[in-house]
């Protein structure tokens, strides 16, 4: 330890580390621990019964299923979006580029009521879609729209820097060897983008699973049909069913932490491939 301390030329290490750890524990670790401790008061059977009730299982299917679908949509369109922003010039490009981050900056409740207004029966798009038999607001489709909205920047912003750092030589080499543009993209460019694309996909998915504000206005919130898991936690809380709310929260936390672990691995993979990004 002495040798280590001697190498520290800069001042403030004990104080800075101490403050960081205390603040992190007080704000993040202890409160999160409280959730797990609370469930520890339940027996295994009670816990299982709470987290596998039919209404709860339906909410997992809705939350995780639609989040997966939204992340897939974002992976496809996010890639096209990033490609267009990096490769092409068109009028208004800077404004489009800046507005990609809108879902990060716009409060979720605002996004929620705006999307509902657009897709409800008398809304700008809803009035055209409903006569076609396509009901978006107050159905699972509405949840999908909201989750796609909030997930878009994750894919664009993870793929964009990798695409920018891509050497033109790689594609020129492929072209000189006789590959057409599609083959070059499919065999040369896409494999290079894969780690970043997967990272963006996972980030969008993770965000969508826990999302609440932008969804509840447009979802309709019908149990078994369009009730997301975070809303079910709130419903349980409002019924003073603390144990039930906490048990479901633990399931979500475990899923989120597994995703975080996966994302960290993916990010390490991305940066190993491309240097620091």
């Amino acid at each position, binding site marked *: 330890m002495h040798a280590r301390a001697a190498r520290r*030329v*800069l*001042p*403030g290490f004990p104080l800075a*580390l101490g403050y*960081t750890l205390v*603040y*992190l524990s007080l*704000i*993040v670790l202890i*409160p*999160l621990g*409280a*959730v797990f401790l609370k469930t520890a008061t339940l027996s295994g059977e009670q816990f299982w019964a709470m987290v596998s009730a039919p209404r709860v299982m339906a909410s997992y299917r809705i939350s995780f299923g639609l989040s997966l679908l939204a992340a897939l949509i974002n992976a496809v*369109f996010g890639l096209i979006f990033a*490609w*267009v922003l*990096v*490769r092409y*010039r*068109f009028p208004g490009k*800077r404004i*489009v*580029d*800046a507005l990609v981050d*809108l*879902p*990060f*900056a*716009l*409060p*979720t*409740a*605002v996004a929620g*009521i*705006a999307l509902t*207004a657009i897709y409800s029966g008398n809304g700008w798009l809803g009035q055209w879609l409903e006569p076609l038999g396509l009901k978006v607001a107050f159905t699972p489709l509405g949840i999908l729209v909201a989750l*796609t*909205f909030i997930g878009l920047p994750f894919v664009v*912003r*993870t793929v964009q*820097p990798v695409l*920018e750092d891509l050497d*033109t030589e790689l*594609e020129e080499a492929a*072209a000189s060897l006789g590959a057409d543009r599609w083959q070059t993209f499919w065999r040369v460019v896409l494999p290079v983008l894969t780690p970043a694309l997967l990272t963006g996909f996972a*980030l969008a998915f993770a965000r969508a699973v826990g999302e*609440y504000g932008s969804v509840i206005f447009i979802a309709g919130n019908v149990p078994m049909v369009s009730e997301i898991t*975070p809303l079910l*936690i*709130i419903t349980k*809380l409002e019924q*003073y069913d*603390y144990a039930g*709310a*906490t048990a479901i*929260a633990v399931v979500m*936390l475990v899923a*989120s932490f597994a995703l*975080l672990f996966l994302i960290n691995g993916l990010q390490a993979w991305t940066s190993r491939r491309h240097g620091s990004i």
Partner: protein
Amino acid sequence: MAASIATRWTAHSQRFEASAATREPAWVKGVLIAVALSFFSLFLLLPLVTVFAEALRKGWAVYLAALVEPDALFAIYLTLLVTAIAVPLNLIFGVTAAWTIAKFDFRGKQLLTTLIDLPFSVSPVIVGLMYVLIFGAQGWFGPWLMEHGVRIVFAVPGLVLATVFVTFPFVARELIPLMQAQGKEEEEAAVVLGASGWRIFWHVTLPNIKWGLIYGVVLCNARAMGEFGAVSVVSGHIRGQTNTLPLHVEILYNEYQFAAAFAVASLLALLALLTLVVKSWVEWRGR
């Protein structure tokens, strides 16, 4: 999350458009741009325009009335108050954590970095639940707090705690990679020249991280003012007492006062636009 200060403004497109080997046929380019712009208009532009269009649907008088009404004014005040506490707390933490992680070597550094990111992967609803479990009437400290007449949940301290949690990583995660990339030679040189810790920070480190710091604070601020899920659980929705701007939007909306709800929402949308402007400006300055 968002790419940190990158070289985004440089004209990459020219590099790729120069050679036939890195260029697509004109019709492919046209289709891709059309797809991207349609997606952009549908998912980003339309919601933004809708907020302002709905807010002004019943005219300026109704719009302004919704903003100067006492409950709305209180919501503005409360949002500013909560943000004014939460952002500086996380700013101090972010700088301290980044200093620790970027300038020193110690065991468990990678774990610490991951733990700092943890709040981003917790659903806002669960954040609220945590504080209810700890400080709520039936929570661990609930009875003790009640005896001493202290309210945390369904009161301002709960709103602050929830906001601090959800905005926890913003400044730190912006500064850590930036400070790591800068290394510590400049600071070490300052030590050799006899500068004190504070002087090194103010005169050497701070000028170097200025843009990253502003970037992190701007994002932190936007999330703090706009947070909905977490504060919704701990607020209790008491008008004129625990209603922040996003919660006020929800109440108005649920009472079918759509024009008023969108009027208040338009304030938050303006804040979001301002955030994006400052963010783009910082990216441009920091390149």
